[in-house]
């Protein structure tokens, strides 16, 4: 009679679950992350299915994922060239624009995807107990998958363009960890926010647009007027994207202050996002 229960005792979910009072605060981090890691296939499969359903896995779909940011880059290039003569005189400008814009879109896509991730999965959250963090993480993966083909375009631009490749570019690989950490942290924060305020995702396009203009994507971080210098530490993307472009376009090692600031912002936001999300996620089932 008991075979059904005892047989799976050695199995992962054959264990005894004890549910105790739990209000705010973090769950036990060890079991939480172990469980999230064990179910990581869910996050990757959800992301894969999403890419499939938006045709992003087809050749033309991939092409569109590249073409869309590329066309936007062309639009901004035109705009900036008309508005300011300085950018036009700089042969590296278009490469800088591609480099910053693609990275910015990765972060922006993680934010918009992450914001909707929990609310969208409403029925599943009321039916199944699983680490909810997998939902926004899956969206970050989707954004990353859309970012990778644009990196190829950037590579081509660097090979045939005026900037050229350089050994310093390899520093971009560890620097990318800052982008990833920041994007993940923002996705977690916004996913939580959206549960309590469903209009969060309505504000996002405007926030992202303003953020783009306020970050060194359309302009170089050195171009910031002195009277605004004091404010640069308040924009995380200033150091994160500023350093990104400095490495890839200027072939310079990032400044010490820039590195420390980027590290503080990206991991600060990641830890804050994870803390906010994990301490609120048990509440999601009654809020959806």
């Amino acid at each position: 009679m008991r075979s059904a229960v005892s047989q799976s005792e050695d199995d992962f979910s054959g264990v005894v679950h004890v549910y105790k009072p739990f209000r705010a605060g973090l769950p036990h981090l060890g079991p939480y992350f172990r469980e999230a890691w064990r179910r990581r296939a869910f996050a990757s499969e959800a992301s894969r299915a999403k890419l499939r359903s938006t045709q992003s896995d087809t050749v033309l779909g991939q092409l569109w994922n590249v073409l869309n940011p590329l066309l936007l880059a062309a639009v901004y290039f035109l705009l900036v060239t008309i508005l300011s003569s300085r950018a036009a005189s700089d042969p590296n400008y278009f490469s800088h624009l591609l480099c910053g814009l693609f990275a910015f879109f990765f972060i922006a896509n993680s934010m918009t995807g992450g914001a909707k991730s929990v609310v969208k999965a409403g029925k599943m959250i009321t039916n199944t107990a699983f680490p909810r963090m997998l939902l926004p993480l899956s969206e970050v993966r989707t954004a990353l998958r859309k970012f990778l083909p644009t990196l190829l375009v950037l590579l081509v631009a660097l090979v045939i363009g005026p900037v050229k490749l350089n050994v310093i570019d390899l520093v971009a690989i560890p620097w990318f960890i800052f982008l990833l950490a920041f994007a993940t942290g923002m996705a977690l924060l916004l996913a939580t926010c959206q549960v309590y305020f469903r209009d969060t995702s309505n504000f996002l396009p405007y926030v992202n647009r303003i953020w783009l203009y306020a970050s060194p994507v359309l302009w170089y971080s050195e171009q910031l007027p002195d009277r605004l210098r004091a404010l640069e530490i308040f924009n995380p993307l200033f150091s994160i994207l500023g350093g990104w472009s400095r490495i890839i376009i200027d072939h310079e090692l990032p400044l010490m202050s820039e590195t420390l600031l980027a590290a503080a912002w990206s991991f600060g936001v990641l830890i804050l996002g994870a803390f906010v999300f994990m301490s609120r996620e048990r509440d999601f089932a009654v809020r959806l």
Partner: protein
Amino acid sequence: MQSVSNPPSISVRDVSITYRTTFEKRPTLKSAVMRAGRGERLIREIEAVKNVSFDVHAGSVLGIVGSNGAGKSTIVRAIAGILPPSSGEIQVRGRVSTLLALGVGFDANLSGHENVILGGLAAGYSRAEIESKFEEISDWTELGDFLEMPMRAYSSGMYSRLAFAVAIHMEPDILLVDEALSAGDARFKKKATEKMMSLVREARTMVFVSHALATLQEMCTEAIWLDKGRLMERGTPAEVVKAYSKFVDTPPSAATLEDV
């Protein structure tokens, strides 16, 4: 049937569940700001379950009856680990499979097949386990080609057939079902009931929330009646249904015995 020496599959000890939620259909920052301006709050504290204790032993089927808002769904969600108890403790032994929301699916734009895989992965099954069960699930649902079509093309009956098939074919030790059969047709209900009974014969444990008192009496080995979060009665299904019917002052009739 119940051996006292074995610990119960589910043990609910003095559990209370209170949660705060909003009554707004779609809470927004805009409305929050406007309400703050008027000094009103729409957040309510809901005492859904109050000091409830019961055990469910392996191989038994517990039916839960009660009026709307009695805390039935809340207690089942707590057993599933979705809602934490505010006080008390719940112990669950074994792998749990749940069917707690109508029209369970991850994304209606994805096919039934994709949703089955995603639901299974989220519930902690491996891809190989799900794939090995998929044929069985697909046969049981008789959905055929529909499984490869986006779920938004499904009727509500098809939705519930698929959700039920997934929950029941994953070989759970404990199956939690909340009002899941009401959307299906008569044939599906019969088939679902038979499948559930076969699970019970394999000594799996089941908790079953339903307003269909006849089905409940037929399927359950024991029952509890909740009212406004309190445990009113516990006993054989016949006793509990009788007490509950008397309380709501509706003699068992065709309308209460079958879900409409």
